């Protein structure tokens, strides 16, 4: 029964993560302010918050990313702190700075940490200095072709050429054969220039079907840095995570310890405070390489919360208030999360619309994070995540059986969802064995059973 660390928090997000943050605030006795666009007038996060402020029309750049309106909303409601959730302004250093200058606490790391980790080259070189293994490649942008060729010899094949300023696949080329290198390099430069105004590119070793494994860390202002084990996020389609689990069926205790140590070292070297996630690629021989650090809460944080019985969002709030946090203790059992999207289960085409029936599963080991309900509308303006279903068990098998059970109980009518995809995945032998990598989903979609599925019709 400690006094709440803040009196009132503005939640600068929407959907399930806004609901998640409001839940944490309620449990802490903190009042909440929701912001919303005109498309979200009837949304659950608006209904659950103590107060709400409309910040703009549906388009996110003039509503959920509208810095002046959000800061003003905090001012007029006298909110002491802003939780940015994930996406939107959560990794915007400029927003974190403006919060600071407006006298509102940003619940997240410092603007400097966000800037540092947002600059992939700077982040990588810091990791290199710190002794954290990074993906082999150039130490920064390379401009001359000679430099590129020298590096190419060093890194070896296959490799990937990426725009320094880039993202989203533009200015990106994968090279499998030596003879392709020159052309690919020039093409990447041209594309980078066209897309980002800079022809700077860098070169990295390219991994075929690695594991995507991330370490959750929490660091407080007192200097405590804790690692909360890993999440295996290798089940992806076009770089979009679909399923996450903890622990990873692939890691050994020794590798887990090494990766956790590396992640904590990375956070300490960056002077990082608050929740963060250090993402690694792990190759078949269990070598791991730093990719990037996400300076916010992740979509998939519940799998970690569940096995550690530890509320990460409450911890973020405590840290932002300058309070120390508890160490995680030991994890127990196995947790898995399925992202249920308003999408066709096989083509992943978006399926916005009004949900007629919405009945969430319950019973042992089931957690549901959602902002939807029967009669609610999935607006076409935002991402298609409608619910996260998290199943926990004593063993991985129990967690997967429970996930199947929960998925089969989940009733969502009126729109298409990815539930049939997840149900098929839980039944897949390879997945059951834990034998998967980031290259898993595409062949799975080809081989998956095609029996007429009533939910598909």
């Amino acid at each position, binding site marked *: 029964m400690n006094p709440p660390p803040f009196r009132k928090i503005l939640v600068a997000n929407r959907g399930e993560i806004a609901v998640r943050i409001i839940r944490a605030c309620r449990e802490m006795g903190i009042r*909440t302010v929701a912001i919303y*666009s*005109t*498309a979200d*007038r*009837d949304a*659950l996060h608006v*209904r*659950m*918050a*103590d*107060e*709400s*402020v*409309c*910040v*703009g*029309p*549906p388009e996110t750049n*003039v*509503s959920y990313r509208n810095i*002046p*309106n*959000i*800061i*003003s*909303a905090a*001012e*007029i*409601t006298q909110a002491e702190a802003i939780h940015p959730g994930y996406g939107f302004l959560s990794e915007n250093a400029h927003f974190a700075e403006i919060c600071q200058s*407006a006298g509102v606490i940003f619940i997240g790391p410092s603007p400097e940490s966000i800037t540092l980790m947002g600059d992939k080259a700077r982040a990588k070189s810091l990791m290199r200095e710190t002794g954290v293994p990074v993906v082999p490649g150039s130490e920064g942008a390379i401009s001359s072709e000679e430099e590129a060729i020298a590096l190419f010899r060093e890194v070896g094949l296959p490799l990937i050429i990426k725009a320094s300023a880039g993202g989203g696949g533009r200015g990106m080329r994968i090279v499998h054969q030596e003879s392709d290198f020159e052309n690919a390099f020039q093409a990447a430069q041209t594309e980078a220039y066209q897309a980002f105004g800079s022809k700077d590119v860098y070169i990295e070793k390219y991994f075929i079907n690695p594991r995507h494994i991330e370490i959750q860390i929490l660091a407080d202002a007192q200097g405590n840095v804790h690692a909360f084990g890993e999440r295996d996020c290798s089940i992806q389609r076009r770089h979009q995570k679909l399923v996450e689990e903890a622990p990873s069926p692939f890691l050994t205790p020794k590798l887990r310890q090494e990766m956790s140590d590396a992640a904590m070292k990375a956070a300490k070297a960056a002077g990082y405070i608050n929740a963060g996630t250090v993402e690694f690629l792990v190759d078949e021989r269990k070598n791991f390489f730093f990719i990037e650090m996400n300076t916010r809460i992740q979509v998939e944080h519940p799998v970690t919360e569940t096995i550690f019985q530890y509320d990460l969002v409450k911890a973020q709030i405590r840290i932002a208030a300058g309070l120390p946090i508890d160490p995680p203790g030991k994890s127990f059992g196995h947790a898995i999360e399925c992202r249920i999207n308003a999408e066709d289960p096989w083509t992943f085409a978006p399926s916005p619309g009004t949900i007629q029936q919405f009945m969430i599963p319950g019973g042992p080991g089931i957690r549901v994070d959602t902002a939807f*309900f*029967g*009669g*609610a509308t999935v607006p076409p303006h935002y991402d298609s995540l409608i619910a996260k279903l998290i199943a926990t068990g004593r063993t991985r098998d129990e967690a997967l059986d429970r996930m199947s059970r929960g998925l089969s109980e989940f009733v969502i009518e009126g729109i298409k969802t990815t539930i049939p995809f997840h149900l098929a995945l839980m039944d897949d032998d390879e997945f059951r064995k834990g034998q998967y990598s980031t290259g898993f989903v595409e062949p799975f979609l080809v081989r998956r059973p095609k029996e007429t599925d009533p939910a598909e019709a």
Partner: protein
Amino acid sequence: MTNSEIQELLALLQNTNVTVFELEQEGTRIKIQKSPLAVSDAFRILPSHQNRMEGVNVGTPSDRTTVSGSPNPSHRIITAPIVGTFYRSASPESAPYVEIGAPVQKGQILCIIEAMKLMNEIESEFDGTVRAIFLENGQSVEFGMPLIEIELTAES
């Protein structure tokens, strides 16, 4: 049908899901319509619904301007383009920019919304006459909130 019969009927309907009930007695015409689970009522038991700030008459989702429709076709409502604090005058000492009944011209300052310590002047987009001022000085405004209603000058 007597009044007490109607009263009875109303009491009867009170605890049902019926939303529309029609009756025509001569040819005996009845229409009963039940609500498909009133979603908007779902959260009324939550304790969190007090100090809610809810805009009314907000423009349609695609509406980026600061104007929204009024029930009166010759009237226009200027709505808040930004979030902040509403002021009717430039400073506590100054006179309000406009009063009800005052004529206004397109481009004329109507009020101020303070946001992040900046005074944002809200201009009229029309020639006309101020018919309503919806807010008190110093009140908080959210995006889309009605500020001022203007009756358009009849075009000649």
